[in-house]
């Protein structure tokens, strides 16, 4: 915005109130820039920088494509988001999955559907066994509630396939 501060309108008056127009112009500039910042925040919010949107929804796969994870990269403390885990294996096979890393430190799992065949704890996370269908597909739906703050790195591992790495950030 071009401002000729010498314009008579913008000169400081001494009566009836003492003015400091240089300062007032700064205040107006702050309001002006602030307005743009609010719009930028709004647009980023629409895009999903603060969870749920194009920037946040991620689709990670293992190198061979047999493990696929759909999840939200950005979470908010106290809110819930889904995580969908699909694997492609031999028909009717029981597949072992290891969910590890910091996932369980930052999130609590509110729901886990369908119930796995078996579940047990592992060194840093949990291990579960899923029953694949006649086409060799198995899918697990989780609802995660963000409890922590900050960045959480985790991984999902299936024997014989490469790790799927998840980076998730939880906002306050």
């Amino acid at each position, binding site marked *: 915005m071009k401002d000729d501060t010498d314009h008579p*309108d913008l000169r400081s008056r001494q009566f009836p*109130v003492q*003015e400091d127009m240089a300062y*007032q112009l700064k205040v107006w500039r702050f*309001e002006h820039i*602030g307005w743009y*910042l*609010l719009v930028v925040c709004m647009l980023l919010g629409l895009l999903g920088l603060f969870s749920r949107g194009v920037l946040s929804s991620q689709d990670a796969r293992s190198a061979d494509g047999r493990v696929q994870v759909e999840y939200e990269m950005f979470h908010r403390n*106290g809110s819930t988001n889904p995580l969908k885990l699909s694997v492609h294996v031999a028909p009717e096979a029981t597949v072992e999955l290891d969910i590890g890393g910091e996932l369980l430190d930052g999130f609590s799992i509110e729901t886990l559907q369908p119930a796995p065949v078996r579940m047990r704890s592992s060194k840093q996370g949990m291990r579960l066994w899923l029953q694949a269908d006649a086409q060799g597909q198995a899918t697990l739906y989780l609802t995660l509630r963000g409890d922590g703050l900050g960045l959480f790195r985790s991984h999902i591992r299936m024997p014989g396939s490469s790790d799927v790495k998840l980076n998730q950030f939880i906002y*306050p």
Partner: protein
Amino acid sequence: MDSVLRALAMYLALMVLFKIAGRRSLAELTTFDFVLLMIIGEATQQALLGDDFSLTNAFLVIITLIALDVGFSLLKQRSGWVSRLIDGEPTIIVENGKLLHRRLRHARLVEADIMEAARSSQGIETIEQIKFAIIERNGKISVIPQDSGKG
């Protein structure tokens, strides 16, 4: 601990946001401003309390907010710089019956806003009858009439 931090963060965030919105934003409450204020209050309340609806949490949040408020007023009293930063300064927008257009543009005001304030506070009919119109620190427009303008 988190209750105090929540209240602190919310207080400061709201302060910055209302500084961006400008002093006029909620100065004269229209019906819509009133509704807006209620929605802001509703959105704030959840973030302030989280999922803890205990008396202790409510007290902690209220204590923090009041302490901050008193603290800022003490600071404002001691330092002119802080007072100016938080409360701002009055700005003249009409001088001897003439609009200061540049200032109006910056303050996001139009002549109708000034005339509205002039009519309601002084019963003034035309802009020439205004000696000074000033946006006060609280966002209200105060109007000083011309000595001989009114008959």
